């Protein structure tokens, strides 16, 4: 009578694959319409994402950012919240990392790293907790407040980088470069220590941090009583009250964790790649994180996989725009948009198509 529920494999695997194929098919038609060869475009895209070491490095570097912001959206989602403030929280996280690297650089790396982690999560969390408290205590919707906090974060950074943290005698709004010993090692450096040669790329050790964060989210949300409470609040606030679980406390907690995860993006970008504080390093990763989380069904495994897809689209797409002249940068954005559209917004479009197979199974 009501919608029959899909088995797990169908919802988690089959449906996303069908969605991606539909997006690629439509993209192919688009590419053909502008006079390029869609098959060639697909091959360029794939080779650009995975075809050689540098490409893989770039893909995984983007993936790292998407994992952080995707997890951030997912944790809030499990508490029934739609945190679209990943951009702002990541900006603040980066600020935290930057302050540690700028002002605690007298310390050795093994002290700078934990301090930077604490600062990035604390700053990100604090930036998300304020909307969280406003939601819990005053009912101000987090969708509104978090997006407003994105603007505040961005203007705060502009102020700090033009007036306070700017390297003296310089025009561009950036801090000085950090001391080299505070850099998070690149993957190619780390692999070189192990004697494995690898091409240079921005990929750094924060990729492992992202995987650790995924394991943490999985364990916390599904295997602790705090995660249980958070999910009860998200799934049924009335049942939470009935069970004596405070929705207010859990809303604030979920936003704090969500913001902390987004803040970790700053470790990758500031400590791992740019080695200085600068503007707009979040580059829209916070927003794409929403699509990543949607597509990954708010589950860490799904998020890692969809982050990989988006990482590949970013890197392969850049290559595609570079190599196939007819396919411009804008077309690549359209293709990425189509994937988000089919995987995120039109998630269940092909559900009726899938149902006969499910029944047979």
């Amino acid at each position: 009578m009501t919608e029959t529920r899909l088995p797990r494999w169908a919802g988690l695997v089959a449906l996303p694959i069908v969605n991606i194929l539909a997006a690629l098919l439509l993209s192919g038609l688009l590419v053909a319409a502008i006079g390029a060869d869609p098959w060639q475009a697909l091959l360029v895209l794939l080779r650009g994402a995975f075809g050689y070491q540098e490409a893989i490095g770039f893909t995984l570097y983007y993936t790292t950012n998407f994992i952080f912001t995707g997890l951030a959206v997912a944790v809030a989602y499990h508490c029934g919240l739609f945190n679209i403030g990943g951009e702002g929280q990541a900006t603040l996280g980066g600020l935290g990392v930057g302050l540690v690297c700028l002002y605690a650089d007298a310390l050795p790396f093994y002290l700078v790293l934990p301090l930077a982690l604490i600062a990035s999560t604390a700053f990100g969390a604090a930036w998300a907790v304020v909307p969280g408290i406003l939601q819990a205590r005053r009912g101000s919707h987090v969708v509104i407040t978090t997006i407003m906090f994105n603007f505040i974060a961005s203007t705060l950074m502009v102020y700090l980088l033009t007036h306070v943290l700017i390297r003296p005698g310089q025009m561009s709004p950036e801090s000085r470069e950090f001391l080299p010993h505070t850099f998070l090692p690149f993957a190619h450096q780390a692999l070189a220590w192990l004697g494995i040669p690898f091409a240079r790329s921005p990929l750094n050790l924060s990729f492992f941090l992202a995987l650790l964060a995924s394991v943490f989210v999985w364990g916390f949300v599904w295997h602790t009583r705090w995660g249980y409470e958070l999910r009860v609040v998200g799934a049924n606030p009335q049942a939470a009250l009935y069970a004596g679980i405070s929705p207010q406390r859990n809303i604030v907690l979920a936003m704090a964790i969500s913001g902390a995860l987004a803040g970790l993006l700053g470790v990758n970008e500031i400590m791992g790649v740019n080695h200085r504080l600068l503007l707009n390093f979040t580059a829209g990763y916070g927003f794409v994180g929403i699509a990543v989380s949607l597509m990954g069904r708010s589950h860490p495994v799904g998020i890692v996989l969809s982050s990989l897809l988006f990482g590949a689209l970013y890197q392969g797409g850049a290559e595609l725009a570079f190599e196939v002249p007819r396919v411009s940068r804008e077309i690549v954005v359209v293709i990425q948009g189509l994937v988000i559209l089919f995987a995120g917004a039109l998630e269940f479009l092909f559900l009726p198509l899938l149902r006969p197979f499910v029944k047979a199974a």
Partner: protein
Amino acid sequence: MSNPLPLWGGVGEGAGEFRLRRMVQDAPDLIPGVKHTPAQAALGEGVDVIPPAIELRHIDKRFGAVHANRDVSLAVQAGTIHGIVGENGAGKSTLMSILYGFYQADRGEVLIRGVKKTIARPVQAIAAGIGMVFQHFKLVEPFTVLENIVLGVEGGKLIARALAHARGELARLARDYALEVDPDAVVATLSVGLQQRVEILKALYRGAEILILDEPTSVLTPQEADHLFRILGALKRQGKTVILITHKLREIMAITDRVTVMRRGEVVAERETRATTQEELAELMVGRKVLLQVSKGAARPGAARPGAGRLAVEDLSVVDASGVERVKNVSFTVRAGEIVGIAGVAGNGQSELMEAIAGIRRAAKGTVRISGGAAHGNARDLRRQGLAHVPEDRRRMGLVTAFAAHESAILGYHDDPAFTGPILLDRRAIVAHCAAQMRDFDVRPPDPHLASESFSGGNQQKMVLAREIGRDPEVLLVGQPTRGVDIGAIEYIHRRLIALRDAGKAVLLISVELDEIMSLADRILVMFDGRIVGEVQADKADERLLGLMMAGIDPRTPREAA
């Protein structure tokens, strides 16, 4: 209660019948085109020559693996009231949804007055003269009665003419069927009983000759239900056909001419109402013998701890979010070893009272004591003090429907050391605990990994009961323990509640089912408009007395309560 009452409030029925008869005699020409079939003609001889108002032939419907209707054949004679009974999931609603065009049957045909019809959409059902009154009303609450009536049948671009026409029509219907409603009242301000009347008027205004009512009395007071039955009686006398879907066997006995019993998608029996009994119908519905009333010994309150009120509520008031006082200075005690029932029409403060005692809602003033100590804190703190709570709405509150059964099974007790270590939940212990509860309470299917929403209402309720009773509480609050629960499970749930009482626990029961209150409770408190208007010993209670008290009138005192 075992012998069926002829009708609730015999006096009122007689008067209503008399008044109706007079109305029909006074103004027979007001109802053009309606045959004044005497009820007897429709029931007795001569039915064979008139085609049935509705005939369903070999209806078959599957939803995936669920065979909702199996080869169902059913004929409803014109000018009769036909009851359809069956447990949840027996296929009654599916069958009526097919008749009303929500679903298409896989096989079989529908005949209206002997003519085969295809009903693919509700519009076609309405055109064929079928009207449906849903359990959950489909009214636009901020609109007036009149606006609701013409909704969808305005018949032109300007509304004024339709409204004028409807006003005249409404006056006529009100006279003919005792369906008085103020046409200019805003629906949201009407009582549930009146809203239901608007639904019936809506159907009649669209020319319904056949009226289907789905569990129509579940939201009514006995007096309102009584009035509804008078309306149905009038409709029948005017030649309309009524199909009544209900699980209340007493209503079937009181008002219907024939009754069809469904079980697991099939028609298992059809009976002349006069020639059957509630016991027979119950047995046919469930497929085995059912005790309609669980026998219980006399309460021995205080036996476990003489004189101690296990639950004492003193001067409790609750103000809701919009500032309305929903519970007003309520005081009572529930002693160990007794069940106290709170009767009342839904929405008179019972839910708020219950939630305040359970720590879900903050009381504006007053105190609650559990086993003598002042109860304080949120629901979780109160659970630690020996209070368990089976909420009124298991789907809204008692379970997290999206969670697996074993996750719902620890709701409220999730920080019990049995279920969680210092950091991680002990999944294995939780699943084992849930499996044990499912065995103990005969939950089907006994699968702790199945989503809570996949269980039937009765099994969900058993899961909630298992969780709450399983903690061996000193005080149990129970709201609507058998709402939407199969008749077989009702018996089981009642027996568990009585067993808890006999174990020396205090049970506070809230139910809108008077039958349930009267058969379970040892003492009955009646709530009206946030106050307790009176207390009745269960053995001295009857429907009429409680019904009057539920309307705020205590006939034992000279002046009106409240």
